[in-house]
């Protein structure tokens, strides 16, 4: 049962990871003069969009997490609306945090917000898919014995990795190397993306490694 679940998760993660690459390649093919540094915002939104689409698709197909209590249309609609609201709020939340960390307040607002959107896609969207628009549950998941399935554990790992990646991405900004990727917010978005990718890889490996120690409570 363990192996099966881990394998399923690993393949799902592979799909999601490939979405990052598709999101990079697609505009490179479609648009002229595309480069990750030059037209960075295009890259950010393309990656965010493809990751979001694949995430939603994967979780919907696998049927993980979304255990709808009621099956009525209005409930679904309200759930969708609330999810969208949560996502938007989380974008603003990240934006504020990033500004507090020292991002410029008025200049390059769009760039800062794009970073917030990307981070929300990597973290909040997965929370939404797995746990629904339920902040209480989100808070609960991020505690030591809050995880209730392998998916929760993987959520913990990918979220932490994305955020830490973005955090580490801020480190090279003050250096005087004059590289194109030191421009705000490129290093942070790249850091978040690499963090997310490594989280996707680490999660199945870590769970496999610790499968003896992991015990999940009843759902």
């Amino acid at each position: 049962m363990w192996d099966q679940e881990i394998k399923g998760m690993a393949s799902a993660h592979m799909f999601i990871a490939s979405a990052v690459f598709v999101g990079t390649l697609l505009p490179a093919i479609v648009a002229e003069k595309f480069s990750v540094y030059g037209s960075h915002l295009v890259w950010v939104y393309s990656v965010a969009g493809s990751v979001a689409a694949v995430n939603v698709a994967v979780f919907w197909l696998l049927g993980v997490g979304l255990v709808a209590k009621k099956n009525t249309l209005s409930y679904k609609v309200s759930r969708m609306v609330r999810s969208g609201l949560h996502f938007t709020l989380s974008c603003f939340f990240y934006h504020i945090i990033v500004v507090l960390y020292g991002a410029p307040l008025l200049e390059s607002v769009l760039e800062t917000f794009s970073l917030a959107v990307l981070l929300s896609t990597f973290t909040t969207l997965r929370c939404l898919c797995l746990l629904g628009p339920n902040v209480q549950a989100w808070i609960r998941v991020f505690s030591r014995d809050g995880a209730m399935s392998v998916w929760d554990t993987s959520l913990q790992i990918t979220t932490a990795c994305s955020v830490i990646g973005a955090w580490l991405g801020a480190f090279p900004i003050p250096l005087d190397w004059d590289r194109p990727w030191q421009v705000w917010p490129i290093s942070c978005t790249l850091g978040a993306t690499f963090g997310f990718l490594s989280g996707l890889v680490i999660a199945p490996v870590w769970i496999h490694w610790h499968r003896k120690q992991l015990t999940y409570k009843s759902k």
Partner: protein
Amino acid sequence: MERLPVLLLLLWLCSAFFVGIHLFVGGFLLVRLEVNKSSSCADALLPGAARPDFCEGGARFRRAVLLVVDALRLDFARFRGGNPRPFENKLPVLREVTSSQPEHARLFAFRADPPTTTMQRIKGFTTGSLPTFVDVGNNFASSAVLEDNLVRQLARAGKRVVFMGDDTWESLFPNQFYRSLPFPSFNVKDLHTVDDGILKHLYGTMEGADWDVLIAHFLGVDHCGHRFGPDHPAMADKLTQMDQVIRSVIRRLQNDTLLVVMGDHGMTDTGDHGGESLKETDAALFLYSPSPVFPAALSQAEPEVVPQTDLVPTLALLLGVPIPYSSIGQVILPLFHQESRTAGARSHLSQLEALWINAKQVNRFLETYSYVARDIPRESLSMLQDKFASLWNEYSSTVKEGRTASPALVAALQSYLTAVREVCQATWAKFHPLKMASGIVILATACTLCFAVSEALAGAGDTVALRASLAMGAFAGAGVAVGQLGSLGYVDAAWCLGAAILSSQLAFLWGLRRGEGRAFARGGDPRRTSGGSLSPPVFSVPLLVLALRCASLLSDSYVIAEGRVATFLLLSLGLYIPLRLNWEGLLLPTSPDCQKAPGLLPSPPLSSSAVRRESLVLLAGLGVLVASLYLSLFLHNCREEQGGCNPSPLLVPLARVQDSGLRNLRYVLSVASLAACTYALRCWLRHYGNLNGPGAAVFAARWPLPLASLCTGLYWAVSSTPERSFRGFAELIALALVVLPRVAFAFLALGATLLWMNPLTVFLKPRQAPSQGKGPAPLPRYRASTALSPEAELHHLIPQLYQRMRRSLEDGESSGGPEGDGRPAVEAYGLGTVYSAPVVLLSGLLGLGLLLLHSEGMALAFLLLLLEGTALLHLHASSMTLASLQGAHKGDFSVPWLSVLLWDLAATQFFHATGHLPTFPSIQWGAAFVGFPQGHVGTLLPGSLVALNTFSSHILFAVGCPLLLFWPLVCEVQAPRRGFGGSERNAVMEMRLRERPREFSTALLQLAARCLCVKGAQVLASALAAAILRRHLMVWKVFAPKLMFEAAGFVLATVFTLVGFALVLRVDFAVSGWFKRLIPEQCR
């Protein structure tokens, strides 16, 4: 509790750091005293001489052109066959001229002295001395050269000195040039601005007639080296351009003009400089004159290498001006006639005469210097003096007998001058790697020791270990001293202290290790093992952040952006607290619907509402922290390296604000911040009942504090009035400018003294008779153990008394109503915060004094500091409370690393948020004139005022450090009062510390050790940075100033940490005395 051992141990730890810093700085920063005397034509260099010495010989050249090509390394100028690299053979003009006109030109190797940075080099080849990083002169504020120098001598002799090029000259010699065309030198990436600017004016000036000495300083080669390195086509282009320049200059020279082309230093293969490798020190020196000057053949031993200082006496004598006073150079002989003066030609100096003048001048300087400073070793000094005396005899006999100069005398004079130079160089111009290394070792050991002490919880009871290691240290120090006396004949205190401290440190560490091993073998006492102290949390997040912070000190970019780095790390750590609490499951109450493992916890009696409220407090604290962090970002100053940065407008003194509306607004803002600070302090004290009663400390809180802030507000108003607006009251205003700040300082000093004399802020209110009889009744628990001796009885009675006092505090404050039944005999107000109130009060007094030293706008920064400090304390307290509420707390008073690190980072952050920077130009010199608008006589008072201003945030956070220990206990009282009927046990606040004096002293020691460790690690990191990167381009601009600020901040912070902890111990002493007085009258 043991007070003296704690203090002793702390003193010893601090002194270890101090000795380490002293050793390192002694090896790294070479200090030389500047001699502020000038040579003049009328000087008689020898005591008995009748004739003046300088200006006698007359000038050999009327004019000179000095082309300084920055970083012109020797092998850029030399010709090399074979396959040339980009920087080779690009100056063919030098070879062509020297080979075709050997009587007119020479190329020498020109050896600079470290530090090979442009500013030090310019000073070097104009003063003829060996400038070090710190030239102790009269004037710290400006970088102008105060020593006697060539530029000054030339100007004094009426020569018109025209300068163009690197603007460093302009700051070194302000207003000394006849004409100057400075160009900005800062941007290393810009290869052409300075050079093109020079070329635009150079030829025109040369063709004109209104100059005597022309100095042109080209920067392109140096910048090209920094940007691309020497091995780059751009360097070839730049050198080719220089070749063209030299050719055109030579074409325009007239017969009475000397051309000097020189590099001020070399560069490494990566294009950097600053250190002492041959590639950095060896530059090219090319001398050319249209008329023949040199002997035709390379006859006698011409110098291969010319030290940079030698240019000064040579140029001075050739141009007929006095040699600058503190020059230790030696004339370049081939430029002078070999034979004694030819008949009739009285004008030119011969080699012997030039050397003799030179030797006399150097001897005079040496005598003056050894009179002022003592850093030249005595035996070498006397050796030099003997040598000079014998030369004097020989020279006078030669002159008397009219002999021609013997080569032996010339050689002797040269060897004397070389010997002087070597002695001076050994004293001033060399790093001492051994001293630096031992300083670093001592600092590292001290950090380890602090860590070990704080982790092993070596109780203050380990006096035996301390005494043994101190004895060991004294022994080792004495051993080294004796050894030095035996081998060298004198004692170098730094080494003795170093040896003493290091050996005592090692002995203590060894003792700790053994003690721990023994405890482990015995099964240990439970506290040590269960505390998890056997596996120190080296890889925990706080220590990781500390490591990041230390690593950031090794990069110049991060040092430049230090203010933001500190904010970034502080915010990260702040956000980490709730995340970690949530991860541990402590942030939210364990509600029934959230399934926890049954049986995992024995479910302590916790209330979800208490947890929820504590979490809210925590989040509110975090919010305040984040807000003040963000706001404080707007108060930063800017370094010159930071492009596109505007210093905070609040840093401008109010008097300089033109717009009166804005001025009023800013004044109101400042005064409001000041009032808010004072009011918040008073409120806090009143809330905890520390503002009652007749005690001295209470008086200090009630009167001097508000009065001093009133004076401050008035002072700001007076000092910011525009000068023209109240003409009639000019004298009154001048008086107020003196009196108001002094009165404020006097109030604060009075408050601090009163606080120290009687730090108890407790008000005792005796009750009426009925309770007298059954006083001890309510708590028979303590009575049960019958005492054997009076002391033991005392020991048991004291805790009992706290219980009663505590209760009375509660009752007395919450309900003023009719007496209940079990009312105790006395009521004591403010006993719960008996320890923290004096600390808070002292911080408030100090903070107000320090605020007065800042410009008015910084009142906002101090308000933010107060807010942030409180937020940090609450964050710390509520995270501790949350942990203890849910039973995850160990039950001792130890303060976690996380809080200590947050506290320390906040100090660094507010260093920047109060407008300070770790650079010398940014020091706020205005602080020295607060209360002393006319200036000072000495240097001690203004120096300490400026130091207090600069490190105010370090000082405030250091004094407040003990609060980290008290705050969780202070906040504890709120739990039972607001929620549900409080249990007595929970609400003793700081009296808990007295119940367990051993734990109290251990925790106090641990907290201090952790603070020292965190601070010391940063000093260690910046020392390491300075040592490793001593050849970095930025070492004298970034790392060395950073090290000095870090070290000075550390010293001040440690001193004030000790003051804070000493105050706590003083309070403890006073409280003990108070109880002793109280008990007999109540219970005996």
